């Protein structure tokens, strides 16, 4: 009885290991997703922006709703090393942080910068963070996906 139980247990364990070995996905570590220069994108009439160079196209309608703005002339977009997208525009109060998913950009964080709106913002890629420059005031903010650093 014990022998039969041990044999069954061994077979189950072997099958389990085989199943785990066959089903595991390959993971590449330490990927640098950083985009060296921000993209300055002009929305079309449907509030779609298209970054031809880095190959991304999406609607900013929901972001504009959240900011309570009808339209903007330009949207500034940059991706940090971890792969999060940072989005803002002239007059926005916040920087929006998104992570890429299957045909989606999922909101990761909304970083409040100024209640009066950022004027002439620009993103710079820095070694460990994204630098946001308010070119009107000259103020800079160091950001990552978790918020201000």
């Amino acid at each position, binding site marked *: 009885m014990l022998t039969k139980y041990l044999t069954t247990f061994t077979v189950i364990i072997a099958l389990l290991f085989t199943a785990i070995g066959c089903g595991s996905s390959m993971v590449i570590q330490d990927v640098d997703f950083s985009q*060296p220069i*921000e993209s300055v994108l002009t929305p079309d009439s449907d509030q779609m922006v298209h970054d031809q160079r880095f190959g991304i196209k999406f609607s900013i309608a929901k972001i504009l709703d959240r900011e309570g703005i009808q339209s903007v002339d330009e949207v500034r977009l940059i991706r940090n090393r971890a792969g999060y997208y940072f989005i803002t525009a002239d007059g926005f109060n916040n920087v929006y942080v998104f992570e890429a998913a299957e045909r989606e950009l999922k909101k990761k964080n909304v970083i409040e910068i100024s209640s009066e709106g950022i004027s002439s913002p620009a993103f710079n890629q820095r070694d460990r963070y994204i630098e946001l420059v308010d070119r009107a005031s000259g*103020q800079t903010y160091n950001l990552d996906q978790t918020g201000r650093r």
Partner: protein
Amino acid sequence: MNFNNQYLKLYTLFLALFFIFASSALVAQQSDFQIQQDFRAEMAALNERVELAVSTQELEVLEEELASLRDRFSEYSAIINAAIYPDTFEASVNRAEDNRAAFAERYAVIEQLNERVDDLNAEMDVFRDRINQMTLESEDLQDQIERSAASESRQAALIRQYRQNIELRDSFVSDFLEELLMRYQTMDRSTHEGLAETTGRMDDNPLQVIKTIISEYINVADQTSGLETPDYLGMRAQHGYFSDVWGRIGDRLVNTFDPDRPVQAKQEVEDLLAAWLASVDNRLWNSLTTAFNQNNIQLGPFTSPQTFNTALNNYVDGGIEISLESNSEEDYRIYRNFRDFWNNTVKASWGEALVDGNILSQSDIAAIDIKLNSWGEAAQPTSRLMFILFLVSVAVILGLVILLLMKSK
């Protein structure tokens, strides 16, 4: 006082620190996107200015500005490289510099050519002024010749002066043509093409001067009175030389100085040359006919070098034929008249101009000389003394024979 000094030092230190922080903040406030945009804009503007530059001085300034751009943006080369990938900062600046250098080299050549054009312009001005002056002198002399018809000696002196004026013009034009020959016959293709690009701004290029000269020659041939055969022969010789030079450098001149319409320009000059020849010939054949007639030599009609040569040959052939038939003193006189005129005037005075003017070739003249010798032999009248001596000899021989016969009987 001491307190004030210390306060001032502190204030100055604070101010300096403030400026250092403020300036570092200003540097930090730059947008990478803006930097690369500025670089692209400045580079595009510089490239455009290189394309539009019109002098080496402008291109030298651009060289400095490119160097300055390289200095100012080199610290951002990583950002710029990322922004303009697959192009790079170094490659784009180097390309702009290479382009600028190529333009500078081209403009250096153009400026050299411009200097040559300026020289040519100056030469053309001098030449045109001299030709105009000669034309005025000619017209003045022509007027004087017409006004002094009453005084033969005065008219003869003026005509002499007029001839000298024409000879001077011929010599001056010949020097000009020699100069053109030397310059354009040996000019290499690249210089010739380069010069063609810059001659548009010449007020009076050699092609136009050539047309002016030919027009002046046509006027002289058409309007001059009081000239004689040697003068017209000289004009035809000058035409022959002009045509020869044109044949050698005409294509180069039209391609250099009228590159937009070379065929038409060449045809214009050739039409003028033909008109000049027609004007000279119109006077020349009449003048030659008159000269031969005045020396009692009635040549057949002629209106071209070929028919003139034929008329001369027919005259000599006819003389030989008559001399062979009649062998009279009169034939011999006709022969001698022609021989003297041929040797002393046609060959001695006109020979060179006849050959240079393509009227008679050396071989044509030599052929007449040979025929003239035959004519001389045929025309030489046989002496009557010989005939009398012959009769006397026959009579003496007959007398001797009769005497011998009588003696033997």
